[in-house]
């Protein structure tokens, strides 16, 4: 029992109390049953006997009244009602015989039955007289002389029985009252005893529990002080944590904004890179088209060079022909000069020949001049051809260089397109990663907001805990004062 808990001890106390209450209840029930049985017997037997006796008196009067009705009217219906009333009288007498338990009672009932029989016999004689043509005065005297004494005897027997039953009822009531009084006394006695016993048990239980509760309350008081200190520290920590969480939340919000900006920038970079890829591909196509055009230009330049070289060769041929013409002109000129010299040597005879020779010489001079001009023109043409060939060769080299450069440009554009595609992919990955990061940051922000909220709630809870600890300390003191006043003092 020393190691019982408070609940077990209080439960045991309540169990004892309940057992005492059950004992009280059993005693009360037994007492009540005794009282009830006594009362039932008074009500079911004595009172019923008295009522039946009263009914006997009523039925005797009913039977006499019906008989007088016949005697007055000679109506058979009154006789039937009289017989019915007599049957009920007999039935009531029979029920009385069953209920009466004493010899005295049975003797009185037999006496009533005999008196009723005698009364009926007297009444039957008068009724028979009435059926005759006897005068009413005769019937009336016969009724007074024969039926009157029988009726008085019957009334006396019924009254004796009633008086006896009334005495028995009073005696039964007194006995029942005595039983009730005894039961009340018993219940009060048992109750007092059990209350005293319960009080002793309660006092013992209160002392034991109070001592243990006092010890526990002391521990609770100590613990509540420690809890108060811990709650103070927890509230301070929660407050600092809430402040830190707010700062972290602000930082995370800025980080989220930065992530969104990075996402938007990455989207723009991806868009620009996609545009650049399209531009690079367009440029690549343009460069390829230009390269084809350059190849066509190269073919045309080669054709021009071929034609120019052919033109140079033809010019060279013309020059050769002109050399021949020039030489012929020179020889003609020489011949004309020699002819002029010969004509001058011939004197007057050669004058006319000298004129012809002079004309020939002039013509040769003019031919020589023309050939010089033609040669100059041919030289100009050849120079122009050479210049053109050189220019076209330079142009061809430039076209080759341009073609190579365009090839390099094409390769560079392809490389640029590849790099831009890589950049686009990287930008999209950055965009996706940044979106995931933003989502994660949002989740972190939400989690931090929740943590901040939890910190605030913890702070509030800590404050409440502190308040509760303070109240608990106060309550511990109050409880200790209630349990152990000397210790609390």
């Amino acid at each position, binding site marked *: 029992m020393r190691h019982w808990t408070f609940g077990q001890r209080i439960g045991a106390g309540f169990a004892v109390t309940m057992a005492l209450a059950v004992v009280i209840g059993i005693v009360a029930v037994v007492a009540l049953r005794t009282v009830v049985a006594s009362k039932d017997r008074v009500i079911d037997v004595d009172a019923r006997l008295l009522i039946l006796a009263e009914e006997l008196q009523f039925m005797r009067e009913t039977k006499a009244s019906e008989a007088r009705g016949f005697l007055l009217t000679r109506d058979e219906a009154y006789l039937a009602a009289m017989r019915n009333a007599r049957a009920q009288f007999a039935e009531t007498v029979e029920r009385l015989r069953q209920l009466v338990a004493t010899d005295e009672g049975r003797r009185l009932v037999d006496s009533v039955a005999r008196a009723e029989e005698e009364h009926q016999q007297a009444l039957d004689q008068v009724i028979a007289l009435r059926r005759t043509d006897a005068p009413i005065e005769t019937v009336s005297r016969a009724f007074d002389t024969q039926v009157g004494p029988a009726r008085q005897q019957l009334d006396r027997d019924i009254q004796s029985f009633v008086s006896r039953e009334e005495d028995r009822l009073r005696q039964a009531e007194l006995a029942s009252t005595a039983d009730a009084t005894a039961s009340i006394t018993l219940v009060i006695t048992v109750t007092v005893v059990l209350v005293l016993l319960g009080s002793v048990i309660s006092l013992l239980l209160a002392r034991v529990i109070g001592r243990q509760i006092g010890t526990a309350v002391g521990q609770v008081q100590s613990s509540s002080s420690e809890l108060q200190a811990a709650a103070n520290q927890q509230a301070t920590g929660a407050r600092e944590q809430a402040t830190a969480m707010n700062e972290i939340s602000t930082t995370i919000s800025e980080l989220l904004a930065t992530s969104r900006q990075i996402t938007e920038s990455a989207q723009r970079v991806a868009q620009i890179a996609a545009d650049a890829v399209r531009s690079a591909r367009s440029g690549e196509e343009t460069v390829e088209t230009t390269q084809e055009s350059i190849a066509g230009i190269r073919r045309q330049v080669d054709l021009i060079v071929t034609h120019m070289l052919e033109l140079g060769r033809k010019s060279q041929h013309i020059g050769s022909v002109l050399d021949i013409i020039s030489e012929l002109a*020179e*020889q003609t*000129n*020489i011949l*004309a*000069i*020699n002819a*002029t*010299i*010969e004509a*001058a*040597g011939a004197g007057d005879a050669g*004058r*006319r020949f000298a*004129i012809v020779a*002079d*004309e020939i*010489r*002039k*013509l040769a*001079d*003019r031919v*020589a001049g*023309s050939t010089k001009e033609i040669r100059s023109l041919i030289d100009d043409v050849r120079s122009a051809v050479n210049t053109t060939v050189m220019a076209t060769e330079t142009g061809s080299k430039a076209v080759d260089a341009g073609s190579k450069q365009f090839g390099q440009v094409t390769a560079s554009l392809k490389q640029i397109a590849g790099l831009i595609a890589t950049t686009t992919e990287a930008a999209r990955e950055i965009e996706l990663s940044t979106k995931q990061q933003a989502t994660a940051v949002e989740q972190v922000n939400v989690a931090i907001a929740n943590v901040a909220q939890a910190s605030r709630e913890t702070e509030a809870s800590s404050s409440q805990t502190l308040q509760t600890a303070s109240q608990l300390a106060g309550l511990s003191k109050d409880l200790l004062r209630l349990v152990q006043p000397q210790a609390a003092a």
Partner: protein
Amino acid sequence: MNGDQRSIASKAAELRQAFDRSFARAADADRPPSEDLLAIRVGGDAFAVRFAEVAGVFVDCKLAPLPGSAPQLIELTALKGRVLPVYDLGALLGYPAAAAARSWLVAAGAPVALAFDRFDGHLRVAREAVTPRRSADANQPFVDEAVRTERLIRPIIRVASVVEAIESLARRARPAE
């Protein structure tokens, strides 16, 4: 038709007209007194030779080299059944020996041919254009006149003096033989 073609056409017409005029003009039409000269190049300088001192002009004729002779005598040629010595006119005039003189002339009245660098053509100038040189030049011993043309002044080589110089050279070389 552009400008060049028009110029060529007009020049052809002009030549045609001049050629036709030569037949239409009278043979003894009055002409101012003139001098006929040969314009030649010697050592890169321009010279002139009178028609009257020349028996003929030849260009790119076959020549036979003549080694071991005088430095002025460079080759031999055959002309109209005669073998003629060809002298370097530039060497005679005091120029350094030329690589190859392809033109030459035959002096009138002497069996000698003179080679020069280039034949420029025939000059017919007014007689007033021929002027004597004021002072003799030691570097050009065979020149005592000059002719003024439109672009330059050509000294006139006196072929007779050149022939005399050749003959003098020949006389100096003969005793050695």
